C-alpha cells in the first residue's frame, strides 16, 4: 500500500490545495492511490510515519518540500519503506536529484516504480541524501550579484581541522567546503556526488583571487567545487568536523548542526523511487 504524506510547508493554502488536487487526480489516473494524510499542527510528519508503519504501508511518499522529505527520513527510525517524493516546490533540490521535477513527473515515477538503493548520510540525528555546507553559501551565491559574490568569497580564511575515516587528520586554512552525497546537477566527474557508491565526497575550497572568483562563482554556486583550482577532494565514509568550533553546517541555508560534528554514510540504506532524469 502507498501512504502519501501531504505537507503544506510554506505554501499558501490555495496553492497547496491546487497541487494536492492535481496529485490526487494523477494518482487515480495512474492507479497508485493509497492512503493520504495531511500534516497539521497536531499531526507531525513523525506521527504520520508511525501511522503508516502501523497500517502496514510498504511505500511512503512525501508530497511537499525538501524539508518534508528530510523530516520523513529522520522519522523512519530504521523502519524499511520504499520512499518516493512528489515536489510541491518548483525550486526543490531533491526533485532535481531524483529526476522528478514536477508533480506529474513525481506521480509518473511512482507509477513506473524504478527503484534504486541509495546511500543515506547521517549527522547528529538528521539524515540527508543531498549535501551539507560550511563556510561556502552556494545557495546565496545563486541569487547574489557580482559585488556580493566577491564579498561572500573574499571573507577571512578559517583554520579547518577535519578527521577522515578515523585514519588521518586534515588541517588547512580555507573558505569552507561541501560534504556531498548527491547534487542537483550532473557533474563532469561521474565519481563525485554519486549516491550509490557508498562514499561521501568532501570538497574544500581554498583562497581565491578576485579573478578566480569572477571566473568560478557560478561553478561554486552549483556546488561543483572540484572544478575550481586548488580544491581538495576526499572520498571517504566518515568525516569528523573538529575546528572551527561553533561553525555552522547548513543544508540549503538551514542550520542543521555546528562544529564539532560527525557525518557518516550508510551505504545503500534507502530504497528510493527515482525518475529517468535523475543526476546519478
Amino acid at each position, binding site marked *: 500500500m502507498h501512504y502519501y504524506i501531504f505537507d503544506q510547508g510554506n505554501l499558501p493554502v490555495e496553492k497547496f490545495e491546487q497541487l494536492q488536487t492535481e496529485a490526487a487526480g494523477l494518482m487515480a489516473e495512474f492507479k497508485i492511490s493509497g492512503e493520504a494524510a495531511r500534516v497539521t499542527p497536531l499531526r507531525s510528519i513523525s506521527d504520520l510515519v508511525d501511522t503508516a508503519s502501523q497500517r502496514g504501508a510498504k511505500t511512503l511518499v512525501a508530497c511537499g518540500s525538501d524539508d518534508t522529505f528530510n523530516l520523513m527520513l529522520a522519522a523512519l527510525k530504521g523502519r524499511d519503506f520504499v520512499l518516493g517524493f512528489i515536489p510541491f516546490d518548483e525550486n526543490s533540490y531533491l526533485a532535481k536529484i531524483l529526476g522528478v521535477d514536477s508533480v506529474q513527473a513525481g506521480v509518473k515515477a511512482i507509477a513506473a516504480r524504478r527503484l534504486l538503493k541509495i546511500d543515506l548520510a547521517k549527522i547528529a540525528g538528521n539524515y540527508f541524501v543531498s549535501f551539507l555546507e560550511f563556510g561556502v553559501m552556494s545557495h546565496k551565491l545563486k541569487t547574489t550579484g557580482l559585488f556580493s559574490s566577491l564579498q561572500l568569497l573574499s571573507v577571512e580564511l578559517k583554520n579547518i581541522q577535519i578527521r577522515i575515516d578515523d585514519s*588521518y587528520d*586534515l*588541517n588547512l586554512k580555507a573558505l569552507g567546503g561541501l560534504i556531498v552525497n548527491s547534487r542537483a546537477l550532473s557533474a563532469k566527474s561521474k*565519481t563525485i556526488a554519486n549516491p550509490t557508491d557508498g562514499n561521501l565526497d568532501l570538497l574544500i575550497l581554498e583562497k581565491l583571487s578576485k579573478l578566480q572568483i569572477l571566473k568560478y562563482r557560478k561553478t561554486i554556486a552549483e556546488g561543483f567545487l*572540484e572544478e575550481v583550482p*586548488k580544491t*581538495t*577532494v576526499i572520498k571517504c565514509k566518515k568525516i569528523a568536523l573538529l575546528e572551527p568550533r561553533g561553525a555552522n553546517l547548513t543544508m540549503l541555508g538551514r542550520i542543521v548542526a555546528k562544529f564539532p560534528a560527525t557525518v557518516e554514510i550508510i551505504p545503500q540504506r534507502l530504497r528510493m523511487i527515482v525518475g529517468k532524469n535523475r543526476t546519478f
Partner: protein
Amino acid sequence: MDKDFANVEGPAETIVGPSVKIQGDLNSEGNINIEGQVTGKVITSQSVFVKEGAKITADISASNAVVGGEILGNLKITGHLILQPSAKVSGDIACLTLRVEDGAQFTGKCNMKAASAINGKKTPPPSDLELEAEE
C-alpha cells in the same frame, strides 16, 4: 609519454590541495593527487601524483607514481615510477620500471624486481638454462 608509462595518467579520486596538511594514513582506492603536505603513510591500489611543491614525509605504496615534489620516505611501486625534474626523493625505491628525468634528485637504494617481488613474494632464482644463456 612512452607506451609503458601511458597508463599512469588518469583523473584523481583524492586531491590534496596546496595548503592542506595531512597527518596519518591516507588510504584510497583511486588515484591520489598531492599538492600539499602529508606525514604518515600514503596507500592506494592506483596511481599517486606528487606535484611540485608537495612535501611528503611518508612511505608511499601504490601501483604507479609520478613525483615532482619532495619525498622523505620509501616508495613501493608495483608498476611505473617517474621522477620529474623538480623531484627530491630521500628513501629507498622499489618499482618495476623507473624513469629519472634531468634534474631529479634521488638519495637511497633502488630495487627493480618483478611486480611479484615488490608485493612481498620472493623472485625465483634464475634457472640453469638462463645462467648458461647469460654466460
